[in-house]
């Protein structure tokens, strides 16, 4: 009798565990990227419907948070040329939808990236694990060979001005 009760109890616990499993899961990969300013990188997310019924109108979006010590702040992805959201019109049971999220690295530091999925029928959004992003600084002192022009043009105009003055004096 005790054995039977134990089996019954185990079955109840197991069924609760299965029911409690999230109907939607979201993952992000890779889990870590090292990049340099100016690089274009890409994350991939996977949204899976673990439930028994299809899901409609899911919205997935990416978030980027700077976690460099003393500079913790969420970033405006518009500056990073990143695609901000992706709509999943229909996700069948046990099906997955993958999305690619590319972004241009515009500032150095330590960041975390994660994907959030919002289902209008659920009160809580589903969030992926965070992926780490480390961006190294890129220092450019003379990009596009700009220095000769930046210094040369004002100097050239000054030289033209001085030459014109000398020419006028010589003519007198």
């Amino acid at each position: 009798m005790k054995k039977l009760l134990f089996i019954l109890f185990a079955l109840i616990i197991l069924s609760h565990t299965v029911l409690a499993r999230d109907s939607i899961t979201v993952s992000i990969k890779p889990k870590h990227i090292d990049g340099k300013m100016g690089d274009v990188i890409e994350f991939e997310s996977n949204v899976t419907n673990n439930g028994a019924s299809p899901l409609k109108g899911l919205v997935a979006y990416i978030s980027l948070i700077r976690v460099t010590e003393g500079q913790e702040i969420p970033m405006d992805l518009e500056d990073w040329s990143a695609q901000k959201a992706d709509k999943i019109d229909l996700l069948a049971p046990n099906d997955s939808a993958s999305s690619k999220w590319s972004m241009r690295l515009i500032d150095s530091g330590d960041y975390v990236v994660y994907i959030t999925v919002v289902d209008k029928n659920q009160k809580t959004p589903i969030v992926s694990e965070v992926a780490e992003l480390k961006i190294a600084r890129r220092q450019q002192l003379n990009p596009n060979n700009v220095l000769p022009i930046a210094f040369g043009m004002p100097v050239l105009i000054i030289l033209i001005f001085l030459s014109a003055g000398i020419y006028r004096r010589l003519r007198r």
Partner: protein
Amino acid sequence: MKEIILKELKSELLTPRGYLWYILTSVILSILSYLFLTNIELSLLDQSTMIFFLMEAVLSLGILHSIIYGSDSYAGEVERGTMEVLLLTPIRKTSIAFGKFAVSVINWFILFLISIPYILVVGKSGKNISVAITYLFILGTLIIMIVTSFNMILSIKLKSVKNAVLVGMLVFFLLGTAIILPPSLKHSSFIRYLDIINPVAAAVNSFDSVVIDSEGFRRQVIRIVVILIYLAAVILLLKRASQRDELVTGAR
């Protein structure tokens, strides 16, 4: 008209003051180009956006020169007491007006020539550089003609350099919404309606269209027509204003 052009070139542009304008303009463009290419965030803008920003800067500097030159054209002569002498010469009033007008356009050509190396270096390895230079030259010249004519009319009517510059600057702030306002405000419907009838916005939106969006000439036709309508109107008004008899009288 040739005499007026030569006189104005010698007294206005080919002078230490004129050269100082060009040196300062060149220094401003040097700083902007260096910032565009080296600043941490701006250096990561794509090339065409940087060219567009530089075109806006060159046009703004050209407009600023034209406001000052146009405002000084008549009121300056009156304030310096040289207007009577000028009117006593056997040169037609229309020729005086369009001689001064031509010098302002020549001044713009010099500014444009100064800006070319900067555009080339900022846009190096980018797309639409030749298109950018062509549109800056054509639309920039038309806008400079409008601004010069308008400020010459102000100069004739107000007979005060200070007032003409002030009104010219205020009008520029009104017309320069396409340059001055942040991108988020440009999306408001009021600004969009204002842009349709604003010649400066027409030029700036055309720069955006051809350089950033790589759109063709067909998309620019309406904008160019708007600019040409304003140009025709201000040139007619300038012609009429320059023939007034009371040009020599002082500020009212």
